[in-house]
């Protein structure tokens, strides 16, 4: 470990602000880059699933109706 305390790690001899801002922005952008396709996938999955359920519930139930008479 190069740094001997949390404070020296944070300040990095005056360069801490540049280093931590760079890493922070990168972490946010990378997290969004991975998160977006995962959410898109789930959105598409749920859409197809709801369409399947809608089709099943809209199917005619003629045989059952016929037995009523």
């Amino acid at each position, binding site marked *: 470990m190069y740094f001997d305390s949390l404070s020296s790690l944070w300040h990095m001899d005056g360069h801490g602000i540049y280093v931590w801002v*760079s890493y922070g922005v990168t972490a946010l952008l990378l997290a969004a880059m991975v998160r977006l396709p995962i959410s898109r996938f789930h959105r*598409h999955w749920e859409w197809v699933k709801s369409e*399947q359920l809608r089709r099943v519930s809209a199917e005619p139930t003629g045989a059952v109706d016929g037995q009523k008479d």
Partner: protein
Amino acid sequence: MGSPPWFFRFSGRLVRWLLPLTVALLLVGAFWGLLVAPPDFRQGNSYRIIYIHVPAAVVALAGYYVMALAGAVSLIWRIKMADVTMRAAAPVGAVLTAIALVTGAVWGKPTWGTWWVWDARITSMLLLFFLYLGVVALFEAYENKTAAARACAVLSLIGTVNIPIIYKSVDWWYSLHQPASIKFTGESAIDSSMLYPLLLMIGAFYCLFALTVLLNMRAELLWRHRDSAWVQQLIGDA
């Protein structure tokens, strides 16, 4: 490779081990670069930005080749999976180029005394960012997705001219940007204590690129084939 159902199943298995591998490599590489590696004798601790700046730039450039190659395959052989690959790689490349530009600007302030200069390397990287954005925008602009893929492929292929310019810009023009520290031939201008975490982070960014492109491709395939029997069965069985 050309069969969407096969690719969907294969990529699902690949993603499952690529995700933990990428996270582990990123965490170890960042820990090593930030906390263990020694400071640079000239730049001090600000040089630690190298561990995200260089991997992002290297993979953004390599990603462009992936996109352009997919564009060429799509244009010549009209393979739909190539369209999907091209579309999946464009936003990932745009984010990585944006990271390279932002971290470069932040690193430039303590090193050069300025956030930005219209230097050959930096300007050609900015052009790369616009090329990626152009491909993303073109795909969205066309109603007909076949025409969109064709236009994007042409733009990608024209943009490949920019890649050797980015690589060689620091040698061809007088530039504030330092020349490459890692060399394939000859000795690298970086000590091994700094080089190993850098190589690890480059590996991590390559894995991250592969992972995100695969995730984008899976989302796109699911939507394009939503009415097909294999998607209906896959979701029905789940």
